[in-house]
């Protein structure tokens, strides 16, 4: 039996695994202590729970527990990494290299840094969504202090070659920061093998609770420091003040442990479902895969259906299937996804895209239903689409003078 609605938007957020919730519950009530209370059992218990979670989190990414700074989420971790490095390494330089398909939490922080006198290079990704490594190396200058590139993209699921990127950075003595929100817990991420110096990730993308994330900050080879962005009690080795979210952190730890233990099996199962979904939907006439075919997350696919508008398409089934689109018909700007546009997609194809994010609880039955619904709606809307009619009549849409709004 299919239960509706079906959730296929796991890049946005994931449900908490029930095992995570079970682990968290005692820390709301009986074990409510403040981890910074050093003088009584309530505090000791909370501190112990946080220490244990810190180990679980560190283990998943091959780090030392002392290298984990808990934050409120990845946006805060992105801010802390970028602004913190920019301020801490001001005497070494002011230049940061990033790319044009980063998450807004990185791009907008970089914009802020530019206002503060920083210099930022936004590399253009190739059509497959990956950075050109020769271009990256050529962008490094004597005043470059940081390369900030995402591990995996949230819209198209492409995975950057982090170890190759960090090899280039090492050669030039530049630090590497990665927003790894979509990758951690889904694919093997190891800060040492990947040569990453700072890394942001968050619990709610990996079946943990919302409102808790972490910044990994390397302590050895080299020892990296960031300037705190919040003033206060000096928690988290002075890098992030604020009472620790003990239940959240406990849940984060548990989520990491589950991902670590089950990743291999889960990836095998979910990637098979993703491949089925992708193969079936690419059989639809004039449908296109967005982003690199090989270097991508196992649970994500992004497909454009030409001459059908994405939001209109979602409306055909969004009572029963939760998905997201690159179309931005709801935004006042009418601008489609900047990520898809960065791949060189025309606005029409960018408006026509759907993002599928599968997850731990996705079933084959759900995928079969989704294939059927999406295919039917695409066909129905194409019957209604003047662009499809023109395309079928052999009219080149580029030759038409459109009345732009």
């Amino acid at each position: 039996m299919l239960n509706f609605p079906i959730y296929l938007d796991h890049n946005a957020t994931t449900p908490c695994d029930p095992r995570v919730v079970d682990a968290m519950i005692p820390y709301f009530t009986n074990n409510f202590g403040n981890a910074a209370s050093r003088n009584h059992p309530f505090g000791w218990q909370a501190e112990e729970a946080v220490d244990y979670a810190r180990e679980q989190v560190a283990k998943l990414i091959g780090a030392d527990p002392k290298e984990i700074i808990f934050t409120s989420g990845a946006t805060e971790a992105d801010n802390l990494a970028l602004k913190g490095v920019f301020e801490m390494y001001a005497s070494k330089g002011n230049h940061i290299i990033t790319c044009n398909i980063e998450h807004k939490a990185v791009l907008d922080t970089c914009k802020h840094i530019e206002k503060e006198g920083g210099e930022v290079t936004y590399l253009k990704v190739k059509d497959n969504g990956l950075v050109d490594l020769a271009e990256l190396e050529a962008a490094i200058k004597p005043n470059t202090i940081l390369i900030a590139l995402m591990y995996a993209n949230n819209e198209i699921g492409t995975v950057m070659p982090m170890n190759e990127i960090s090899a280039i950075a090492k050669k030039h003595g530049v630090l590497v920061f990665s927003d790894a929100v979509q990758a951690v817990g889904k694919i093997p991420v190891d800060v040492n093998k990947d040569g990453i110096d700072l890394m942001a990730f968050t619990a709610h993308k990996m079946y943990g609770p919302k409102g808790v994330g972490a910044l990994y900050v390397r302590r050895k080879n080299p020892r990296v420091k960031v300037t705190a962005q919040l003033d206060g009690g000096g928690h988290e080795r002075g890098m992030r003040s604020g009472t620790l979210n003990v239940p959240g952190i406990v849940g984060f730890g548990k989520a990491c442990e589950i991902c670590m233990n089950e990743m291999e099996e889960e990836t095998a199962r979910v990637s098979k479902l993703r491949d089925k979904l992708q193969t079936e939907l690419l059989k639809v006439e004039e449908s296109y895969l967005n982003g690199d075919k090989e270097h991508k997350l196992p649970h994500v696919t992004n497909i454009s259906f030409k001459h059908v508008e994405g939001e209109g398409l979602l409306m055909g089934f969004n009572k029963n299937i939760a998905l997201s689109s690159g179309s931005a018909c709801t935004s006042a700007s009418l601008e489609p996804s900047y990520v898809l546009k960065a791949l060189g997609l025309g606005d029409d194809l960018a408006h026509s895209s759907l993002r599928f994010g599968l997850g731990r609880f996705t079933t084959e039955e759900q995928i079969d239903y989704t294939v059927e619904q999406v295919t039917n709606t695409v066909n129905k809307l194409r019957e209604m689409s003047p662009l499809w009619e023109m395309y079928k009549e052999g009219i080149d849409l580029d030759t038409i003078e459109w009345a732009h709004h």
Partner: protein
Amino acid sequence: MAYSEKVIDHYQNPKNVGTLDKSKATVGTGLVGAPECGDVMRLQIEVDEATGVIKDAKFKTFGCGSAIASSSLATEWLKGKSIDEAMTIDNMTIVEELNLPPVKIHCSVLAEDAIKAAINDYRQKNGMEALKFEESVVH
């Protein structure tokens, strides 16, 4: 954002989807919007030569549910109206009828523009001057 029931109904059961023979002198065609903006509307009217009344109207729309609903509603309203009456259809009445939220007002503007474009196409085909319309406020 939730859609109004009327938008959902037009989306699920669009009225007057189709194509009229644009080579006929009695048919006026309006094609507005742009693929880059995420919506393109084609609205056609067929005018009864004897009475000057719009006897048929068809649309095809590439766009979101509100754009589809706006054009579907417009074709319903056009049928049985004279050209003069058709010109008085205002985008805000479409907004009210469909309960469109502010971010979707452009869909109704597009429908109004499509009506005017179809009327002008019909006029020019029949030796009349194209009418100049004031620019709609919301673009």
